[in-house]
């Protein structure tokens, strides 16, 4: 086996330069128990701090939350902390930091990083654009990533070199800007490292069952016992209360439960850490039950399923009270005409969106309505304006298309990026919905249109380029809209909202998966706790759902209905996340009862494809959305796709947004 030589940062000029600078250090006494009941490691030391490190909650750098980034060393452990400034914080120049005051405290708390152990970190990606601020993205072992941290006062290299001094960090040979933390090549090294870090490690680690990321051994005990685990107590009590008044009050209680659960697990986590376990969760499962491991392999044999008590759904009663409204039939032409004034303006867009939310649109009418829903046409435009817009946009489209059409074979030889994109797109369009008659057969014209539109888009938004999944979005749009240019602009409008799903750094996906985990936490705390102990909190099992908005989970006619429901943004821009919660809650009994691990859960979720009742799911999601209310929206970070940071009434007025830039698939 070859040993990749990436353990050394000495080739990094940034690193070398920083070594020559004195790095400011200051030592403090710990205020009481800030880092847990650590006992011996009472002294903590700030080994790095940097002012004015900011998060851009939206893709516009004008909106930012600034704060102080610190690395703190306690004993052998290194922690990272980022605390946003409070408005008017002393010693802070209000002209520079004033932007925080416009953000609610909730928003700020959402992002606060408090005492993150470096051992929970998988990697740190460094971005050093030629223009603009340097930033880093911290990816946790769980797979979740924090939003980019922008260094307004520079200091990325010092940050990395400080970590290098105190923790195991290695440059990835895959990407020179990725620094892997806790990157151990083999189990022996892992064992050695845990010895080094914690002084205790059992050789048994190598052979016993290892549970990645389990938070506490106590939870494992509870999981298997016949009595309920601790987290089911409170919600259940709540359910016996026949209260009629719902949502907010309930949710307030839940947030207390959540807080309680978090504190409890944090405490357990720290205890286990102090017991010498490697704190990123490789905790042995069998300490509570030696008999279990000797009788049978620690695996849920099929016969045992459903034996595990499943905590009751905390919202069971509440949801039955605020069940989503019955679904209507799709809107037809007559009804549509009622919404239009004589010149073709939509008089009441909210009423229209509501109508579409509750029943969708008849097939023949979609061609017209989708252009509004996607933002290609504005609601207050007239027939004449739209006709004019279409003709202008058609010319625009032809111009962009000509950019790649004019590339000669000779030029293409010197244009690798173009050849790669074209090759990939050509490979993918023939693998997109070919079972539909619209796209089947050899030399199908519509497949060629798919290719042309995608290739043109990859020139229009060259930074984002083409990424797999885009053809899944375009296929129904082209099917509905038919016209090439208009399909392109509708697709481009959709990508304005969902383009970051395809960012190379996966920032859009991470933001949504993070928001989903927060929603499940408030809407089904026991399920959240289960997923946490099963090390499934990265929600990667919902990746496909979110990446292409359930395209592979429903039949074609159903996906068109679901998409138009989502695109109304009637209840929430993030209604798709409530759809996720609704599906997960529907199967919570099975997921928890069968004690699904990550692999089993992923496979289970995959196989739900085309077996989900759409109307029921939308109604459930509506109820959940109502139930979560403001608390739900508050736990979704601003700028999470498909949010637009600023209302753009017309597509052609869009800014050259990609401040995001760093994306690009191919």
């Amino acid at each position, binding site marked *: *086996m070859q040993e990749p030589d990436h353990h050394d940062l000495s080739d990094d000029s940034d690193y070398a330069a920083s070594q020559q600078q004195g790095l400011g250090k200051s030592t403090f006494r710990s205020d009481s128990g800030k880092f847990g009941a650590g006992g011996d490691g009472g002294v903590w030391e700030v080994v790095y701090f940097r002012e004015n490190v900011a998060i851009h909650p939206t893709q516009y750098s004008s909106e930012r939350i600034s704060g102080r980034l610190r690395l703190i060393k306690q004993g052998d452990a290194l922690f990272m902390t980022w605390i946003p400034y409070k408005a008017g914080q002393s010693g802070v120049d209000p002209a520079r930091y004033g932007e925080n005051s416009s953000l609610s405290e909730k928003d700020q708390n959402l992002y606060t990083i408090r005492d993150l152990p470096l051992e929970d970190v998988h990697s740190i990606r460094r971005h050093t654009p030629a223009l603009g601020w340097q930033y880093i993205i911290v990816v946790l072992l769980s797979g979740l990533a924090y939003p980019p941290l922008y260094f307004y006062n520079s200091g990325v290299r010092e940050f990395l070199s400080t970590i290098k001094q105190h923790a195991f960090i290695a440059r990835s040979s895959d990407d020179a800007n990725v620094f892997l933390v806790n990157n151990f090549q083999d189990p022996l090294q892992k064992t050695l490292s845990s010895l080094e870090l914690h002084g205790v490690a059992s050789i048994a680690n190598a052979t016993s069952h290892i549970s990645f990321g389990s938070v506490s051994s106590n939870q494992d005990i509870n999981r298997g016992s016949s009595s309920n685990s601790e987290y089911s107590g409170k919600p259940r009590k709540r359910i016996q209360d026949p209260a009629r008044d719902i949502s907010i009050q309930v949710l307030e209680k839940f947030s207390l439960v959540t807080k309680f659960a978090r504190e409890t697990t944090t405490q357990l986590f720290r205890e286990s850490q102090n017991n010498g376990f490697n704190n990123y969760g490789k905790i042995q499962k069998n300490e509570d039950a030696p008999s279990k491991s000797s009788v049978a*392999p620690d695996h849920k044999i099929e016969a045992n399923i459903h034996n595990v008590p499943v905590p009751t759904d905390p919202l069971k009663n509440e949801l039955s009270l605020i069940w989503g409204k019955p679904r209507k039939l799709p809107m037809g032409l007559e009804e549509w005409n009622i919404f239009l004034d004589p010149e073709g303006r939509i008089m009441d867009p909210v009423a229209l969106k509501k109508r579409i939310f509750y029943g969708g649109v008849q097939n023949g009418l979609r061609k017209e309505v989708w252009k509004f829903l996607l933002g290609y046409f504005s609601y207050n435009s007239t027939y004449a304006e739209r006709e004019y817009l279409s003709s202008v946009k058609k010319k625009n489209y032809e111009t962009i298309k000509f950019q790649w059409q004019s590339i000669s074979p000779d030029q293409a030889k010197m244009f690798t990026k173009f050849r790669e994109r074209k090759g*990939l797109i050509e*490979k993918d369009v023939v693998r997109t919905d070919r079972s539909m008659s619209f796209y089947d057969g050899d030399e199908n014209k519509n497949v060629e249109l798919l290719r042309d539109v995608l290739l043109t888009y990859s020139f229009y938004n060259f930074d984002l380029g083409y990424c797999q999944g885009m053809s899944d979005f375009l296929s129904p749009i082209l099917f509905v809209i038919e016209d090439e240019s208009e399909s392109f602009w509708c697709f481009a409008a959709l990508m304005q909202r969902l383009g970051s799903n395809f960012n190379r750094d*996966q920032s859009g996906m991470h933001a949504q998966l993070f928001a989903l985990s927060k929603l499940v936490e408030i809407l089904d705390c026991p399920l959240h706790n289960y997923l946490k102990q099963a090390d499934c909190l990265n929600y*990667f099992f919902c990746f496909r759902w979110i*990446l292409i908005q359930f395209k592979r989970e429903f039949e074609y006619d159903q996906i068109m209905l679901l998409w138009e429901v989502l695109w109304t943004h009637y209840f929430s821009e993030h209604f798709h996340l409530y759809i996720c919660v609704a599906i997960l809650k529907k199967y919570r009994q099975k997921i928890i009862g069968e004690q699904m691990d990550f692999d089993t859960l992923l496979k289970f979720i*995959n196989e739900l494809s085309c077996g989900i009742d759409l109307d029921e799911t939308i109604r459930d999601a509506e109820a959940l959305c109502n139930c979560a209310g403001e608390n739900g929206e508050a736990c979704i970070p601003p700028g999470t796709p498909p949010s637009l940071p600023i209302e753009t009434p017309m597509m052609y007025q869009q800014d050259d947004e990609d401040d995001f830039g760093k994306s690009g698939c191919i």
Partner: protein
Amino acid sequence: MSYAYLFKYIIIGDTGVGKSCLLLQFTDKRFQPVHDLTIGVEFGARMITIDNKPIKLQIWDTAGQESFRSITRSYYRGAAGALLVYDITRRETFNHLASWLEDARQHANANMTIMLIGNKSDLSHRRAVSVEEGQQFAKENGLVFMEASAKTAQNVEEAFISTAATIYKKIQDGIFDVSNESYGIKVGYGGIPGPSGGTSGASTPGSGCCS
């Protein structure tokens, strides 16, 4: 269907090299050129027999595009075997092998058996990578190698089964602790708890639902 062991496999490699087609050829014995492109991961399963023992292969077919690497990495955990696939007609898919291999080494169990597959051997008239180069790469990196064709089914059975045979041998040799699922091996209900166990796994119908 009951089984003595269940092995988790993962199929990796660049997009468009034929990972899904290899899987379909192996599980359904058919070639479907117009298969939808894979988003995330797809699953397949098949029973095989090694040393008279029923073995279930649970196969994870992954998306190949570079952008999805970070998510693909989360699938390696607990895989006993991997099929690393390139397309013999596209040189770049061969050039990327080292990076795939590094991902596999970093994120999978160190004892994972890796089979290198040069797919599309039916298109040898358009060959861009010689057999020798494939062999050489495999040799340098300690992989088993064969060229195969998902279209004609040539070597497809062999690729999956010989990987399983290698894993089975590792169990017999005691390299794996089969009670530790992080090795990607599950013992079937009524199966053999250890390398020296002797009971047959074929006696418990209806137990293999965790495919």
